[in-house]
């Protein structure tokens, strides 16, 4: 029997429509639905007509919740920590102490859990991967009714470690105004949310996470030729500490004034953030479209859009890693 609308609604929960449409497109399925009702109806029809299986849909939703609209902190674990997570005897014992049973597959997170909930950990040959879910409350104002509107949203946090070299990612959903991570004044605090999962990831891996400086990679991405990114927006500071924002409809590096400025003092600039599009033409077939990401050298975070999928995130991170190693 094919799933009901209510079951489909529950499975897709509060996942963004852009992400669901992008996933449908990647599966060569019709993706024109514009509203939540329309997209639920679309899934219902595809499932009823056996053009899509429930297992495929679940896998797709799992992939979306792990890649869509994430703020990604890039970091590394040291060589001692790497030895621990790559030694099966030591690491299995460590997980046992934490009462964690590794899973063989990625699992879909529960919708709107009452508190921070561990979803799964996969201890694979090349990658360690763990996921958590929790519920936040977004507040918006209904101006017509002069009311605050509270909406509960499931938030996903994913921790990924490359076992080859200890390169790690912590992928966060954007925090909303109300959640369980409080500051010393008992108020919800975004930094407390990020810190909680960083500490949890350190506990689960048994390794300290070392932050990475993204600024050298930002500089390298600007200066690499032939270009691998389109750069419409760049925030930087001149050597004299003036803050500058260059924005272009295409690429700031084609602007004669930017070129003149860069030629004069570009060596001394500190790149604070860049909004970039990864170019498919420079991706050796790994990208099928221009993929947006925002890199912040101040927070060391990479942000991707709601319609971004795992392969696109992996490509962006691979390139950032290449540019970091070029400059270190």
């Amino acid at each position, binding site marked *: 029997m094919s799933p009901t609308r209510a079951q489909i609604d529950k499975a897709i929960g509060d996942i963004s429509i852009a992400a669901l449409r992008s996933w449908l497109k990647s599966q060569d399925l019709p993706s024109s639905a514009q509203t939540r009702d329309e997209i639920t109806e679309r899934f219902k029809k595809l499932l009823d007509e056996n053009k899509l299986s429930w297992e495929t849909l679940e896998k797709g939703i799992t992939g979306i919740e792990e890649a869509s609209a994430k703020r990604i902190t890039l970091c590394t674990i040291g060589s001692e920590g790497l030895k621990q997570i790559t030694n099966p005897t030591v690491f299995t014992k460590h997980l046992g102490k934490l009462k964690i049973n590794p899973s063989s597959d990625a699992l879909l997170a529960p919708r709107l859990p009452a508190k921070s909930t561990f979803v799964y950990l996969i201890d694979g040959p090349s990658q360690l991967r763990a996921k958590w879910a929790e519920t936040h409350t977004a507040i918006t104002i209904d101006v017509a009714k002069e009311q605050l509107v509270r909406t509960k949203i499931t938030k996903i946090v994913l921790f990924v470690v490359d076992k080859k070299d200890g390169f790690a990612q912590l992928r966060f959903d954007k925090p909303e105004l109300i959640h369980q991570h409080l500051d010393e004044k008992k108020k919800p605090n975004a930094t407390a949310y990020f810190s909680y999962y960083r500490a949890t990831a350190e506990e689960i891996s048994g390794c300290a996470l070392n932050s990475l400086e993204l600024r050298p990679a930002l500089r390298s991405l600007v200066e690499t030729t032939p270009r691998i990114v389109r750069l419409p927006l760049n925030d930087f500071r001149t050597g004299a*500490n003036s803050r500058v924002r260059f924005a272009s409809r295409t690429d700031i590096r084609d602007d004669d004034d930017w070129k003149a400025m860069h030629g004069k003092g570009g060596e001394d600039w500190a790149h604070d953030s860049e909004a970039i599009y990864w170019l498919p033409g420079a991706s050796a077939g790994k990208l099928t479209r221009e993929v947006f990401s925002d890199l912040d050298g101040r927070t060391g975070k990479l942000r991707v859009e709601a319609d971004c999928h795992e392969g696109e995130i992996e490509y962006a991170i691979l390139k950032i890693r290449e540019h970091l190693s070029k400059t270190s």
Partner: protein
Amino acid sequence: MSTQSSKFESILAKHPKLRANLAALASYIGRQVEAGRTDIVPALAAAGLKISESEILGLLMLFEKQGLVKPIYQIYCAEKKTLLAEVDSKDDISEVVYCKYCDKEHRDPDEFEVELVFRAVNGVWEAAPQNVAVS
């Protein structure tokens, strides 16, 4: 011997392995002060000296211990990228910052940015040598 150079020599004596980078940073600060810029921004020093920002921070903290620089927290409007206020301690950062450029009070932490800079202490660096001996 000036105060600056005796304090600097004291850092070098305690950290001989950092001599080259300490000397490069001291020269950088001297040049900045000479150009009228007394706020040393770790990210800019890192870019100018091709040294990692974390290492620059560590070196600046050694200078701070000797009283050559002092930490300042600068609060910028995230939207207008303009300096709004500065305080000596993180604890003094107000939850609400009025921004005259936006004509509003910024309450959301995303609406302002806090940056740690190190201010060259008055009168200490003016006579600083531009090329500090490395060996």
